[in-house]
């Protein structure tokens, strides 16, 4: 894929000598295409499922609920569109966007291409926080509890990665595995302990993620977090660029390194926590999406962040659509689909690191 005006040539052992040019106009076109695809995807994903719904039905239902006309749909069909499918799809979109954004930001501030809210344990920590509120009756709202869980997990991962040696990308991921395993086990324990019915199903949906039960309150949390946290985070794009060469280099460019790092890490924990509180721990979105987007629009965050958010939304909407239709009427946790796509990408990144240094 060669951008207009750019060239790809090769020297030596096939190493790209010239980077594709990534002009701002390319980012704008890619962003526009992704946005149009997103609107089309939301509408067409609503039509997929056991009940026969057409695009026109989707429009009729949405229009009637927004007060733009009366609905010719039966209450049952309207309910399927407005009460079940649409909130579920919008939640998937918001969660995908939030996780992709979190991943891109974490990769930049930890200078770790393997960083991802799931791999570093934030998602499992957030799940534990959410489950504690839902099942143990801890007196907190769901999103703040998930945020606290994510924050604790992040602190544990970074602390563990730093204990007894210099912090490195691989050590950080290993620490994340340990934290994630513990938080996941505690989550399962809490669910089992308080279970009255189908606890396996519930454990699966928190550990592997699911938006099956998402209704309008979930949309409100997901979209709300995206607007309140995600959009302001995009203002930090240039700060993230400045981290490319390390802390001293960033400081020499006028960045308050300590403040920037903590603000951005706290914000990603908050964003991840909000998303996990409605969807459970969906893995690999934050890893796969930013890496794929970088290949097309380059590494600069002013383009990378918004386009990662759009592509993350697209990715999770379709992953969820596959998850609910592949073995219809049984549902696969959406995290199974994202892991099947994400784990090979993770492996590829590991192999590339080994050859790089």
């Amino acid at each position, binding site marked *: 894929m060669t951008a207009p005006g750019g*060239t790809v040539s090769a020297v030596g052992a096939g190493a790209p000598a010239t*980077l594709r040019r990534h002009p701002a106009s390319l980012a704008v076109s890619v962003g526009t295409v992704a946005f149009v695809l997103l609107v089309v995807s939301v509408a067409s994903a609503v039509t997929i499922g056991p009940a026969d719904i057409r695009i026109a039905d989707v429009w009729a239902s949405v229009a009637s609920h927004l007060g733009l006309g009366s609905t010719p749909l039966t209450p049952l069909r309207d309910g399927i569109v407005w009460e079940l499918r649409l909130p579920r799809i919008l939640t998937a979109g918001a969660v995908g966007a939030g996780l992709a954004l979190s991943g891109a930001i974490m990769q930049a501030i930890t200078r770790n291409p393997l960083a991802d809210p799931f791999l570093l344990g934030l998602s499992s920590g957030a799940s534990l926080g959410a489950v504690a509120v839902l099942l143990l009756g801890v007196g907190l709202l769901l999103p703040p509890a998930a945020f606290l869980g994510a924050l604790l997990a992040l602190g544990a991962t970074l602390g563990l990665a730093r204990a007894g040696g210099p912090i490195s990308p691989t050590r950080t991921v290993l620490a994340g595995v340990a934290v994630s395993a513990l938080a996941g086990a505690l989550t399962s324990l809490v669910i089992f302990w308080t279970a009255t019915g189908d606890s396996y199903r519930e454990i699966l949906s928190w550990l592997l993620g699911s938006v099956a039960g998402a209704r309008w309150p979930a949309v409100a949390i997901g979209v709300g977090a995206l607007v309140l946290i995600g959009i302001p985070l995009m203002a930090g794009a240039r700060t993230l660029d400045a981290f*490319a*060469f390390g802390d001293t280099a960033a400081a*020499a*460019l*006028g*960045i*308050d390194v300590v403040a920037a790092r903590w603000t951005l890490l706290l914000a990603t924990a908050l964003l991840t926590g909000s998303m996990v509180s409605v969807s459970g721990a969906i893995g690999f979105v934050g890893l796969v999406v930013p890496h794929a987007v970088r290949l097309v629009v380059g590494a600069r965050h*002013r383009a990378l962040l918004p386009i990662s958010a759009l592509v993350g939304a697209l990715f999770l909407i379709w992953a969820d659509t596959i998850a609910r239709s592949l073995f219809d009427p049984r549902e696969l946790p959406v995290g199974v689909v994202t892991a099947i796509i994400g784990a090979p990408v993770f492996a590829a990144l590991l192999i590339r690191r080994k050859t790089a240094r």
Partner: protein
Amino acid sequence: MKGTPDATGLTGQRISVRTGGRLLLDGVDCRVDSGRTTALLGPNGAGKSTLLRALGALERPARGEVRADGRDLFSMRRRERARLAALVEQDLHTEVELSVRQVVELGRVPHEGLFGEDADGGSAVDSALDRAGVAAFADRAFGTLSGGERQRVALARALAQATPILLLDEPTNHLDIAAQLRTLRLLRDLAADGIAVIAALHDLSLAAGWADDVVVLDRGRAIAAGPTESTLTPELIERVYGVGAQLFPHPTTGRPMLAFEEMTSPRTTAEAEGRGQ
């Protein structure tokens, strides 16, 4: 800001830096004048990099202060400071896939507005690429460059920052002799434009021919500072580096040159061991 920098240079007073209980710098005084080149000399571990970071206000000293044109660097806003002094670090490395031009554009970060607006940005980047001699490979991936090419890109990034003060840590590292001389000439040209240039250098002979002034560090102390010709004497080199040295004029340029020989006296060996720990 071009041509007439708003600072007359940089002054460090009684700078002490302590890390993990170890005193890296112990009351160092030094000044870097606008329009002059200053070589920062000293054996490995003498504290050269630490002093450069302190002068750029990137590391807060335990004691001492850094002033530019009478103003305390640590009381300035960070962005303002980054428009005053640029640092060229050793061995630039990143995992991020950036082109040479994108790396150089990072030098504009302290000049950019909230939405990336920067009126002089494009021309500053073009001229920095050009002056550092990296324009020919501006679109190459930074990760594919040789050590010497990276070094020049690091210099280009600092030039794009358009600061009246330039701090360089071993800017001739990894460069072949032609590129070393080209880099040092560029730094002299920048000084001639009124910029204050200080560079940590390993090669005493190159430094002697290049620098207007020298600051000599040894084990965290500034043991000599002043104009090169009167300061960088064979006696000083013998005392600091433990080698015999002779100064003589370059046959064609007349600038000072140095020749070295190993010293065999027991005092030197003992000193070297004392430093080696």
